[in-house]
């Protein structure tokens, strides 16, 4: 994270014509977009629109059937998820997936071991990241004994510990109270401002989307139907029709 601050923003994401088909169902169809280095983009859309599948294709968990994903101009095609992680893409899971028998420090240290072989150094770094996300006093707890919002933070901490250039956040604000959402938003804004970390987030909480994003991408039935500034996208009639509805903006 600190390394990227000195060299300016990194983590530019280019997605070119990626598609994913599950049997007869086209989950994502020829989606292309870019996230400029150092920017925060939100990916929104109704349930089943293909948002998480898009994430999985970027992170390598489900290789795209067609198309290509590039990080800072370098193709990630054919790489395994762990290689894509080491290349600089950190991700969280929509349904939290902590390592339940490990302490919080150990959970996050696993992420840090992506760039160091020294367990002590990884633990030190993990403690720092937990501190940053407000979990410092629970570092020796097990994930099962902390609240769901805290587990969402843990998910973010583990991804951040890998020192990503690009962070993929899959609904980390879902289920959080507004004050917790605001705290999370503040953390991401600060990370983005301080280190130039590029962020792509899937989010239903419009409060967070509007506060964070430079641009908003809208997926519907696997197709990208809008890509623009938050205030433009939220006025787009097609977007309103498929997804948002007027009440989302109260």
């Amino acid at each position: 994270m600190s390394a990227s601050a000195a060299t300016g923003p990194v983590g530019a994401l280019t997605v070119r014509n990626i598609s994913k088909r599950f049997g007869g169902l086209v989950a994502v169809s020829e989606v292309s977009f870019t996230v400029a280095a150092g920017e925060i983009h939100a990916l929104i859309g109704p349930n089943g629109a293909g948002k998480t599948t898009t994430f999985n294709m970027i992170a390598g968990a489900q290789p795209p059937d067609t198309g290509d994903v590039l990080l800072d101009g370098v193709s990630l095609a054919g790489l395994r998820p762990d290689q894509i992680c080491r290349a600089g893409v950190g991700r969280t899971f929509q349904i939290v997936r902590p390592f339940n028998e490990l302490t919080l420090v150990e959970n996050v240290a696993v992420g840090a071991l992506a760039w160091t072989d020294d367990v002590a150094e990884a633990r030190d770094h993990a403690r720092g990241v937990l501190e940053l996300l407000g979990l410092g006093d629970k570092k020796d707890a097990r994930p099962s004994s902390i609240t769901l919002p805290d587990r969402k933070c843990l998910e973010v901490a583990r991804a951040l510990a890998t020192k990503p250039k690009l962070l993929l956040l899959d609904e980390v604000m879902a289920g959080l109270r507004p004050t917790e959402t605001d705290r999370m938003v503040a953390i991401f804004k600060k990370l983005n401002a301080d280190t130039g970390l590029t962020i792509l987030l899937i989010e239903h909480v419009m409060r967070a989307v509007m506060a964070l994003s430079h641009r908003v991408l809208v997926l519907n039935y696997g197709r990208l139907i809008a890509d623009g500034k938050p205030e433009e996208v939220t006025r787009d009639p097609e977007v309103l029709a498929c997804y948002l509805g007027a009440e989302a903006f109260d």
Partner: protein
Amino acid sequence: MIARIIESASPRALALLAVVTLALLVAPWLVDSYVLSVLIIVLYFAYVGQAWNLMLGFAGQLSLGHALFVSLGAYTSAALFIKFGVPPIIGVFAAIAMAVVAGCLIGYLGFRFSIRGVYFALLTIAFAEFTGIIVDHISWLGASSGLFLPVKNQQSNDLLNLRGSPTMFYYVILALTGLAFALCSWLLNSKLGLYWQAIREDQEAAEASGVPLFRYKMIAVAISSGLTGIGGVWYAFYYNNLFPETMFKTSQSVEIILGSVVGGVGTLFGPILGAFVLTPLGEVLTAATDGMHLDGVKSFFWGFCVAAIVLFRPQGLWPWIYNVLGLAPKKEGER
């Protein structure tokens, strides 16, 4: 590393560990030959149990075919000794190599083609069983009539050739158990150990956090099978006879596993504790029913034990004893 483990342990736990270690060190002078023979078997299962636990307990990969690695180690070192006069101190390296190659072959097939969980366990059983069938037909290795090591009435203990008294075999297996314990403690707190546990807990999340699944699972299988192969060398020279129809059987693999299941899978002390609980009970039962033609009584009893553990202490005995005896360190720390 050892210093860190000692630092993180409570005084009570250290005292207990010291007493047990001391008792084991002087045991041959205190007990009769029958009890010593039981202790030897206990330590053997404590040793191979730890090796197996490394694979399932640490890395989450279930093997039900560890008898294969014992057998390969045993047959390799015994054949080298009998046919070529190669002492087991040299033969053990060939034994490790054989076990590791077999382990890596199974691991490669399983992990490369995403054969997971129960299906991977079936793969390990299959390899153990068909290797047994092959050995059963190799007359050079004694085929079904067995492979026997020459037994001489020796006055002195010959450590390099593993020929000597039960006391010598006791100390050899005690040393192996101690070394395996030290290795496992070190591994569990290393990068390998953290990565293994991450894989065990959630494979996809581990991979997304930068853990190369295939490589780290292969390392787990290689270390586990190699350690188990060393146990096989000891086994061959202690028992002096090897029969394919018993060596490669799943029942042998299950016997290796039981101690860990009872003691606590994934814990450092579980396999050792489980061996100390199960083996003497099994021996006592065998002795008590001697001559009564109750052939299946040991298996029945073990089945009963496992059912009881699964029902009442699914984490195994060790975590429970750990709490009952108050062994947890006062301050926060590592396990």
